[in-house]
């Protein structure tokens, strides 16, 4: 007869434990979110991250050990990124018709994301490494970390800001735009992709394939444009 402690020690060494916990908690959070009528603050990514963080702190589990199991989920981000081409190809006709509005919205949105973070952050007393690390927070993690490194920020701090921005956008983006009277799925999806990258795109796909397609497009384009704009902004403001 094994004691509970022995079983726990055994399980803790298995990647299966944290993999199962992640999928299970996310599933649970999704059910709660749906039952609550998709209330923004109950966003499943937000709530499951908080729940797992509490669980890790409570059990004294280091993040590396958690990630040994959870990495199997993260790995799927690669194939999922490739898969974004499918809904986008289905929207080729719309894309062709809207290329000019899209280009302008991308440019204005990209610059707004960078400059609003700079202005508000500086006004609230953020400076130095903290402030520059925040500038690329609206683009997907690998690109944002590269930009941060290049402008003297801390790539790991940037990764945190990127994730938090994504969660904020995913939680309140769609209900906010809807409240302001914007109903078009193309505009909603595109805005989510520019403002909150992949996590926003994930939320857009829950809305519709159409919103998801344009969100994925916006995420890719904004990643490329932000990589060009931020060094210029940093140089202009002497950061």
């Amino acid at each position, binding site marked *: 007869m094994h004691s509970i402690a022995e079983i726990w020690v055994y399980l803790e060494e298995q990647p299966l434990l944290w993999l199962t916990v*992640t999928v299970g908690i*996310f599933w649970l959070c999704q059910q709660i979110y749906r039952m609550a009528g998709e209330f923004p603050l109950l966003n499943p*990514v937000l709530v499951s*991250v908080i729940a*797992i963080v509490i669980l*890790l702190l409570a059990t004294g589990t280091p*993040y590396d050990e958690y990630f040994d199991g*959870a990495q199997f*989920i*993260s790995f799927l981000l*690669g*194939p999922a*990124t*490739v*898969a*974004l*081409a*499918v809904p*986008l*190809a289905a929207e080729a006709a*719309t894309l062709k*018709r809207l290329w000019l509005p899209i280009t302008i*919205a991308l440019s204005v*949105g990209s610059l*707004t*994301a960078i400059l*609003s*973070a700079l202005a*508000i952050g500086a006004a*609230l*007393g*953020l400076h130095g490494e*903290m402030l520059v690390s925040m500038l690329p927070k*609206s683009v997907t993690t690998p690109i944002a970390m590269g930009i941060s490194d290049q402008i003297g920020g801390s790539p*790991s*701090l940037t990764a*945190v800001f990127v*994730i*938090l*921005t*994504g969660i904020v*956008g*995913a939680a*309140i983006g769609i209900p*906010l*735009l809807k409240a*302001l009277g*914007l*109903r*078009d799925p193309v505009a909603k999806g595109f*805005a989510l992709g*520019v*403002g*909150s990258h*992949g*996590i*926003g795109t*994930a939320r857009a*796909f829950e809305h519709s394939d*159409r919103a998801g397609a344009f969100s994925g497009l916006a995420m890719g384009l904004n990643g490329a444009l932000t990589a060009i704009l931020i060094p210029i902004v940093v140089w202009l403001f002497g950061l």
Partner: protein
Amino acid sequence: MIASIAALLVLQLIGTIIIRFTGLPFPGPVVGMLLLFAYLLWRGATPTAFEATTRALLRNLALLFVPAGVGVVTYLKAVADQWVALSITLIASAVIAIVVTGFVLHLLMPRAARSRG
């Protein structure tokens, strides 16, 4: 389904190899996506089975970000001192960027292209 997953992995692999040898500042999967996009436009239609698999994957995209999100735990101490200023900046900037982008695109769209999805 297996064929679709294999195709996605092969495209990601090709993308990663291209990045490795050209040193372009993009993630490998993004190159894989561009290749797939070009192929689907050339082919004209997406095979049904492939569409079903990719749709299932993309509908559950949110789950895939949870492990990275939990990574924030590693930096709780680094951001603890300035958490109020950081939170306000992140939330306000995300909201402003989303609202501005959404409305710029909406206003520039030809009226006929708008829908009430």
